[in-house]
């Protein structure tokens, strides 16, 4: 009979009480795991942003267009390695509720700028350049709709219409884009700007925004200032920012999600700390006499301390680790369903490590006071009591 066995026996002496505490700890870490995954997905855009990428938008607001002429002017600027332009299409498939993230892009520059994030095989690249109605579809989107290379799909827009009055554009899937980094989400598609611009009924020769790579992150500031200065006082002034700052501001538009998450997780943990802490104190107090007996048998104070702390840590782990595992499982199951709203919803190793650290902390905090009391207990007092 070693100490570990004693710890386990002690913990499950009152089975119901132990299970109740395990369940409440499990729930707390389930909440933590889910919300942390959720929050990470929300801020994934920030992580996916490359340090040397800048975004150029209309200064009034990023939904306002820019003239296509700006594209060549920016391309020629010092410090700009390569630049692509994108246009929001407002796409949906068959029914407005099936909304799709669709961009109209110039193929070559688009594939250049996103070369480090997207894996597109050479033959698919060629096909995208060649095929006027060709479209590249992200892996996640292709999987969701069961599309494969060669399929012809009608994509509708809730913003644009064709000169013919039609609201859908026929596109041929010429390639599937895979993510090169885990932060990159692939629930989107891109099609040729040329095809889009020639057929749309309004907005000709306008682009949505530009994404560019600088020659080095150290010149970001200078390049951004130079771009904005060169278009100042024109009808289309620009605002240039790093991709990271742009994505961050966009997420902030939805609301103060970080604060909400912190409050909820905080509330869940305060609850658990109080319940488990109190119960641990209670169980140790009930065992005062036994601890006196152990000490009489020659157990040292440190050993008692270790046993009580071991019990509270074991309790925290028995609840916390399955809680994290269930959260990871649920996140995995929900991933497809939530792809449109919160892409990249998944539990990362970082979240799991933070969770395990919190489990240990919870075990130590709830156990430390009862453990110290038990360690300091004098035999005479312990045996005399109860």
């Amino acid at each position, binding site marked *: 009979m070693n100490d570990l066995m004693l710890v386990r026996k002690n913990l499950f002496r009152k089975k*119901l*009480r132990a299970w*109740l*505490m395990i*369940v*409440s700890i499990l*729930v*707390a870490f*389930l*909440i933590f795991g889910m919300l942390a995954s959720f929050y990470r997905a929300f801020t994934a855009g920030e992580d996916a942003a490359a340090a040397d990428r800048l975004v150029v938008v*209309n*200064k*009034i*607001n990023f*939904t*306002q267009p820019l003239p296509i002429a700006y594209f060549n002017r920016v391309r020629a600027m010092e410090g700009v390695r390569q630049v692509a332009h994108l246009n929001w299409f*407002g796409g949906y498939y068959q029914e*407005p509720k099936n909304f799709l993230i669709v961009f109209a892009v110039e193929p070559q520059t688009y594939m250049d700028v996103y070369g480090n994030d997207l894996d597109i095989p050479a033959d698919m690249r060629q096909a995208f350049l060649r095929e006027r109605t060709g479209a590249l579809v992200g892996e996640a989107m292709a999987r969701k709709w069961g599309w494969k290379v060669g399929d012809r799909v009608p994509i*509708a827009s*809730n*913003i644009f219409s064709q000169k013919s009055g039609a*609201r859908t554009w026929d596109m041929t899937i010429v390639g599937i884009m895979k993510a090169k980094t885990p932060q990159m989400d692939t629930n989107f598609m891109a099609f040729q700007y040329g095809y889009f611009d020639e057929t749309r009924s*309004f907005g000709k020769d306008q682009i949505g925004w530009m994404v560019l790579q600088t020659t080095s992150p150290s010149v970001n500031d200078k390049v951004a200032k130079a771009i904005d200065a060169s278009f100042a*006082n*024109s*009808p*289309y*002034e620009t*605002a240039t920012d790093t991709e990271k700052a742009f994505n*961050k*501001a966009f997420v*902030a*538009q*939805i*609301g*103060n999600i970080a604060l909400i998450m912190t*409050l*909820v997780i905080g*509330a*869940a943990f*305060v*609850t*658990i700390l*109080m*319940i488990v*802490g*109190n*119960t641990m*104190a*209670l169980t140790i107090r009930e065992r005062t006499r036994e601890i006196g007996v152990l000490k009489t048998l020659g157990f040292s104070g440190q050993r008692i301390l270790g046993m009580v702390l071991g019990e509270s840590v074991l309790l925290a782990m028995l609840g916390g680790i399955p809680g994290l595992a269930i959260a990871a499982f649920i996140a995995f199951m929900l991933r497809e369903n939530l792809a449109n*709203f919160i892409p990249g919803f998944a539990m990362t190793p970082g979240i799991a490590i933070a969770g395990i650290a919190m489990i240990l902390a919870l075990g130590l905090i709830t156990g430390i006071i009862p453990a110290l009391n038990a360690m300091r207990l004098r035999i005479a007092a312990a045996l005399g009591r109860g």
Partner: protein
Amino acid sequence: MRSLLLQVIAVTTINLKSISQRLWLSLSTVVAVALVVMVLLAFLAMANGFQRTLAGSGSDDIAIFLRGGSQAEINSTVARDQVRLIEDAPGIARGPDGKPLISPELYVVVDGIKRSSLTKANLPLRGIGEQGATLRKGIAITEGRMFNRGANEVVVGKGLLKEFAGFELGKTVAFATSRWTVVGIFEAEGSVFESEIWADLPVVQSLFNRPNVVQTVRARLENPASLAALKSYNDNDARMKLDVKSEAAYFADQAGQTTDVIQKLGWPLAIAMAFGALAGALNTMYSSVAARAVEIATLRAIGFGGFPAFVGTMIESLVLAAIGGVIGAAATYLIFDGLTASTLGGSFTQVVFAFKLSPALIWQGVLLALVVGLIGGLFPAIRAARMPIVAGLYA
């Protein structure tokens, strides 16, 4: 019967009086339940506030015309000749001068700085027609004046001013090369229009380089029932084929999704936390029964039944949970009620809304607390009622 009642009262009193002996354990149950109720009510108040803001914006007797399939104002465009056709449409109310009461509008998105995060946010700048303000309920200028027609002037909604910086009365704001002066602040009964900036339609069209472009048309109906006539007029004319709906229906659609998401997040979180709190409540109540084992057995030995022991424990649990529920509801009311926040709405622009608790929501919160108390008390109460007298006396 009377004696049973007296027994119940006696045991319940003992139960409640003994709470102070398990102060910390009982307190932790109360706090746990209070936190569960707070989380639930904060989410529900958020969803409710958002929904009220949008629901309060639409009227039944206003029709809104959007391009077919565009869903939101920002995506819509209405052609010039379509506007003329709408002017002649049946069912639209006319002013004393015989002109139809309609407002063609242009909806552009401009940047503002959100005060709480100091980041850029999408704000709607609406160019409204002559009748624009009268087609909305309860528009009142609270400071300054209405913009003059043809001038580079804007009026700003009260909600927008509160959440976003740079639009104070008298300030000049620049959108590209155009400069605008804020000449007035308006109220709109807390509706979504309070999150908007308004200016004269022709001025917005020319300064935003969109001559003669209109995105939506609002029209006052003779009465809500004339929407049907208007719809059939629209559907039967090949030149129209717009989406026509009542403004109330339009905003109800807009509110649906966001409200849904908030509620779908709030309830599962609260229920998961309730399980945690339930574990705490069960623990407390089992401890209560264990601590009073001798006492319960003694009462049984002198002739008390099992039922009073059951009721006493149940009531102790319910009282603790109810106190937690009420504290949670009160704290939510004090901290969150009336708190303003903003989020992206259906037209891709910020909607300012206030958290709003209602008696129905508070009742839902307290009910959840009582469910925790009920389940948390039930099993320990059964144990109390069934406790063998002899074993109890020797405990």
